[in-house]
């Protein structure tokens, strides 16, 4: 059985300067309760690994707005003016990674693979300074695995073993990030008794999940 913890305990657990994966796609499938609690707590110098910068009010947006983020690693920042502004002001470092490369690097980090060999990015700015590997006559970019201290993910249902399900396009990066961090914290929409989620419906086995957020009293 996994320990259900409060948002206050999550805030206490994550130190300034932590390297954090945050799930979601344009804010869909992001653990919003955790994001709000962290933003309110005034964390500093976080490195956030997240698909996109979403908008100021959703996804990683509230953390950026609150000045908690030192570095952003992700694929898209086009609709978050805060990110554009902080980047130009030099207070936010942005590392852009093609989306398919980003998710595969996280998967590699979580699944014990040494990296990703992808054609994506070859011949572009993204390839600069990176090694290439030739396999059977084709050239690929070698991209390194990504891991984090914490993965903060959102789930539809969770049981007390920690088994998770996701719903529709709110799935996105959640099951992949659940593989690739030292501590995985899930914010489910509901917690159900053990045995209620059929084995074939589990998208993240509970053995990967360290903590789940308590139900509101």
């Amino acid at each position, binding site marked *: 059985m996994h320990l259900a913890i409060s948002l206050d305990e999550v805030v206490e657990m994550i130190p300034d300067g932590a390297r954090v994966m945050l799930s979601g*796609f*344009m*804010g869909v*499938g992001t653990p919003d309760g955790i994001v709000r609690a962290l933003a309110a707590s005034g964390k500093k110098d976080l490195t956030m690994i997240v698909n996109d910068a979403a908008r100021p009010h959703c996804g990683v947006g509230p953390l950026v707005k609150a000045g908690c983020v030192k570095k952003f690693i*992700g694929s898209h920042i086009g609709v978050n003016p805060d990110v554009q502004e902080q980047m130009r002001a030099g207070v936010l470092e942005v590392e852009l990674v093609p989306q398919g490369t980003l*998710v595969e690097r996280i998967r590699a980090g979580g699944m014990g693979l040494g990296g990703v060999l992808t054609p994506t990015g070859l011949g*572009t700015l993204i390839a600069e300074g990176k090694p290439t590997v030739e396999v059977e006559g084709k050239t690929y970019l070698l991209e390194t695995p990504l891991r984090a201290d914490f993965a903060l993910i959102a789930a539809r249902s969770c049981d007390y073993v920690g088994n998770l399900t996701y719903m*529709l*396009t709110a799935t996105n990066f959640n099951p*992949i990030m659940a593989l690739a961090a030292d501590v995985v914290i899930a914010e489910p929409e509901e917690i159900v008794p053990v045995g209620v989620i059929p084995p074939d419906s589990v998208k993240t086995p509970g053995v990967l999940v360290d903590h789940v957020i308590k139900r509101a009293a």
Partner: protein
Amino acid sequence: MKDLIDFTTMDPKEIIARRVAMEIQPKSLVNLGIGIPTLVSDHLDEGMGVFFQAENGAVGMGHRPPEGMTDRHLTDAGGSFVSAVPGASTIDSAFSFGLIRGGHLDLTVLGGLQVDAQGHLANWMIPGQFVPGMGGAMDLVTGAKKVIVAMIHSAKGKSKIVQTCDLPLTSQRRVNLIVTEMAVMEPRDDGLYLLETGPGISVDEVVAATDATLVIDGDIPEMDLSRSV
């Protein structure tokens, strides 16, 4: 009744969307980018069995549902509400890009900042000005079986079709087709071919509006937008 439509007064974006729709094969898997590409699905017959895919893991997206019937767990890659067609499925991001990178995607339609005579697309940053990021575009252009760039011919009076891109490239892969409201163009080994002109547009007008050398081989027809798709 189609004959009665005057395409020369049609909204330029709709001209582009309608022309791109004619390229879509029945039963194919298609990814439409944000902006003009999104409009393409309006011009398709649902009986064609085309499945629309989005980077965020939707396979079989349908139109935005009526007010009150949306769900925050079902969106497109721009975060807008969509519906699921019968037979739809949802997959995680690794699987989604597996479809894209692995050659399972029949067609992607993307907007562009620039395309050049070699068929190279630039659509993810304007250094020193605006950096939206590539999102899934680099994987889409690299991995899809067919890539169509759909965009307005010029921006702020400047041609977006150039001899060589000066903006950072999205991929070294040559796109298959470029569709604007003024022209349909195909980059080939020996140059950028003008295949069709837009409604009411002359070849000379296209040439004048284009900052790339166009190959004009024989008579160039006008887009036939009356064709049913």
